[in-house]
């Protein structure tokens, strides 16, 4: 019955299609349960319960949400350009799904022997894997810009333009941050990058701490999550590019956002945290590598949720300044450090770029904190636990007056305002 599988080309196509379909199903399920997990985790952080009514622990909540979204009326605003308006969410989702194709989810089934099988847990091991991810993720801005522009709403347009500017600015830093990894691995293939980390015996986070920090910051901005969620800034732009969308089209945009989140998490764990590897634990059991990879991705997804629950939104002009004036030079510096280390002697000296990168991170953090100290808002704690106020704050304590009646003018005060008001009863 499966004779056609003997033809290697046909077998490859069949395997790729099956794996692709499987991956799409996995990603869509992950998106659905990501929404539930996010709501539950944020609720936990905020001291609430979160959705727990539909099914045990609210497990059917995504199903209920999906049903609700499906049956909502989908209007096309009269001002909108209908074709592009309908197409934009589709572009977003397709692009988001495509990017995952090159990410190795687990080890080869033949475990470490280097023998490739068509059923290995990644769709394509192309030799431009990293470039594929960068180029595809930069396409995702089209969905947002077209959606915002075609809605025919001012808020949508503003949100879309902000989004375009933000994604383009942070993409440069993202690409530069990843080129450090590229120098160490000497390959663009995601599978080879993981194997190179195994060969070197370290995860690239050790050699590339600066690159990792830049990548994570730029990735949060790239997927428009808090604190960089300016395109959908509720308080300023109602919902940005999403304003005119409802129902399934709206959830397609959400889907794209969450799948992008999963993708950048997967890329972060592949490039900086050794992908599916964990100290040789996966040698005998290839299926374990998938579990380990999922745990690593889940950690980064939790980071995204945590950020969203904690941080306020950054201001737009500061966002752009941060991207161009801080992140981009730092990414360039990272390239210089890495290039020097690689030229110095290769794998044995990975700790040089590691220490140098860590130093830059610490100096940057210190510089940022110092700015605050200069403005007099940071308090040092003394052993009593009470904050020591900066000299700009004058706290006045009052001795308790034993009498009931206190003379109004005798109240000591640092700078009495020149106010004179009588609160006496005046008889008419």
């Amino acid at each position: 019955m499966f004779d056609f599988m003997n033809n290697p080309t046909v077998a490859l196509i069949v395997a790729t299609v099956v794996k692709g379909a499987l991956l799409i199903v996995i990603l869509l399920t992950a998106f659905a349960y990501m929404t539930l997990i996010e709501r539950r985790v944020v609720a936990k952080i905020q001291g609430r319960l979160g959705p727990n009514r539909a099914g045990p622990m609210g497990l059917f909540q995504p199903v209920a949400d999906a049903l609700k979204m499906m049956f909502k009326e989908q209007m096309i605003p009269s001002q909108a350009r209908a074709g592009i308006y309908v197409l934009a969410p589709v572009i977003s989702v397709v692009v988001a799904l495509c990017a995952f194709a090159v990410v190795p989810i687990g080890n080869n089934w033949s475990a470490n022997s280097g023998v490739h099988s068509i059923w290995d847990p990644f769709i394509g091991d192309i030799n431009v894997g990293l470039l594929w991810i960068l180029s595809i993720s930069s396409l995702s801005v089209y969905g947002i810009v077209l959606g915002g522009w075609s809605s025919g709403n001012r808020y949508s347009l503003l949100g879309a333009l902000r989004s375009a500017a933000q994604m383009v600015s942070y993409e440069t830093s993202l690409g530069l941050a990843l080129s450090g990894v590229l120098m160490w691995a000497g390959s663009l293939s995601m599978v080879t990058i993981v194997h190179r980390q195994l060969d070197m015996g370290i995860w690239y986070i050790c050699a590339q701490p600066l690159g990792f920090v830049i990548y994570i910051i730029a990735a949060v901005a790239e997927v428009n999550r808090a604190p960089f969620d300016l395109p959908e800034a509720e308080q300023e732009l109602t919902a940005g590019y999403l304003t005119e969308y409802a129902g399934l089209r709206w959830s397609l945009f959400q889907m794209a956002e969450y799948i992008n989140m999963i993708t950048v998490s997967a890329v972060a764990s592949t490039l900086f945290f050794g992908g599916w590897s964990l100290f040789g634990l996966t040698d005998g059991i290839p299926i374990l590598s998938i579990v380990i990879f999922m745990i690593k991705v889940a950690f980064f997804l939790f980071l995204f949720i945590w950020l969203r629950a904690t941080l306020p939104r950054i201001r737009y002009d500061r966002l752009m300044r941060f991207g161009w004036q801080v992140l981009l030079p730092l990414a360039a510096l990272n390239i210089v450090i890495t290039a020097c280390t690689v030229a110095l002697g290769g794998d044995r000296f990975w700790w040089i770029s590691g220490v140098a990168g860590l130093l830059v991170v610490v100096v940057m953090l210190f510089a940022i904190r110092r700015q605050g100290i200069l403005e007099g808002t940071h308090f040092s704690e003394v052993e009593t636990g009470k904050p020591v106020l900066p000299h700009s704050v004058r706290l006045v304590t009052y001795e308790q007056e034993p009498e009931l009646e206190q003379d109004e003018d005798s109240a000591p005060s640092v700078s009495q305002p020149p106010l004179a008001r009588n609160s006496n009863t005046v008889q008419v």
Partner: protein
Amino acid sequence: MATNQDTEFQAEFSGTSEGIKTQEMLLNMGPQHPSTHGVLRLIITLEGETITSCTPVIGYLHRGIEKILENRTVMAGIRYMDNSDYLSPMLNETAYAGAVEQEMGIEIPRRAQYIRLITNELQRIASHLVGIGTYGMDLGTTTPIIWAFRDREGILSMFEALSGSRFNVNYMRVGGVLHDLPKGWLDECSTFLDKLEKNMVEMDGLLSGNEIFMSRTQGVGYIDPQQALAYGLTGPMLRASGINWDLRVNRPYMAYREVAVNPIVRQEGDCFARYYVRLQEITESIRLVREGIDKLPGGPISVRTPIALRPPRGETYFAIESSKGELGVYFISDGSEYPWRAKLRGPSFVNLQIVPELLRGHKMSDAIAILGSTDIVLGEVDR
């Protein structure tokens, strides 16, 4: 229109902007906007992202509370004070009851004074919690508001135990308070305060030290002391500009004559200072409630007042330090059961007046940061 034509004319003939037509954009923020705190409407003129002018339009929540007070007997009118600043009903009631007491020359029993102090300070905490929580919300973080409302819930439950109502408490009376404290209420209050103190340390850690929060608030919306005085600002907004003026200290009333208050003053005058003054005032209020509980004397909770309360003919002004600033009641009586006039000096209304001045020259997203830092309640602005 004329302005725009002039601009175009200049651009065309002076050659400075190389023929690019620039036009100011009119943006209507509110009355239904997520961050105008109720139904405030701001008509904002934008040049790019910079605000060139701003006109607040108020009155969308006008219910004629002052007029209602004239048509109710004094005791019945107290309940309507709850709706003025709906985040601090206890303080509103204290102001109104205090004005009538001052008009009638009543000195209320010490126990009633202390119960008023405790409830007032709890109410101040509740109001500041909402102020801080919504301020976080304005700046795009969702957790502080939930934490703040969780803590505020404890205060509202205590008010429910005290008065039977969570929100429109209707607890103050001319001459004292309605009920004595229920059994076990003070213990519950102490337990709650311990918990709140811990939670406020958490809140401080979540917001105050956050780089993004500081970059959004520090140096934004600076009010210098002279300006603050000229605009008649009171409360945290005035104290954040370095002026040490707190009616609980400078014009002490009721139990504040015996309980010392440390006013929280900061010199920076920006949004961060206003936020931080509120945060520290919560800590100070916790201390005051504890001191009030320690010192709480026995005795009656109210003086006997006639059922048909007729304040003598005359007029008086009585002001308390509300959570937003000086809440004054100008009470005129013609000797009948009904007040002839009861004018409220709402601190939110006065504090709102500086907003157009503050917004000018700021960016659009700063507008929301500044408006949130004024902590206005539209119920009190429109009354």
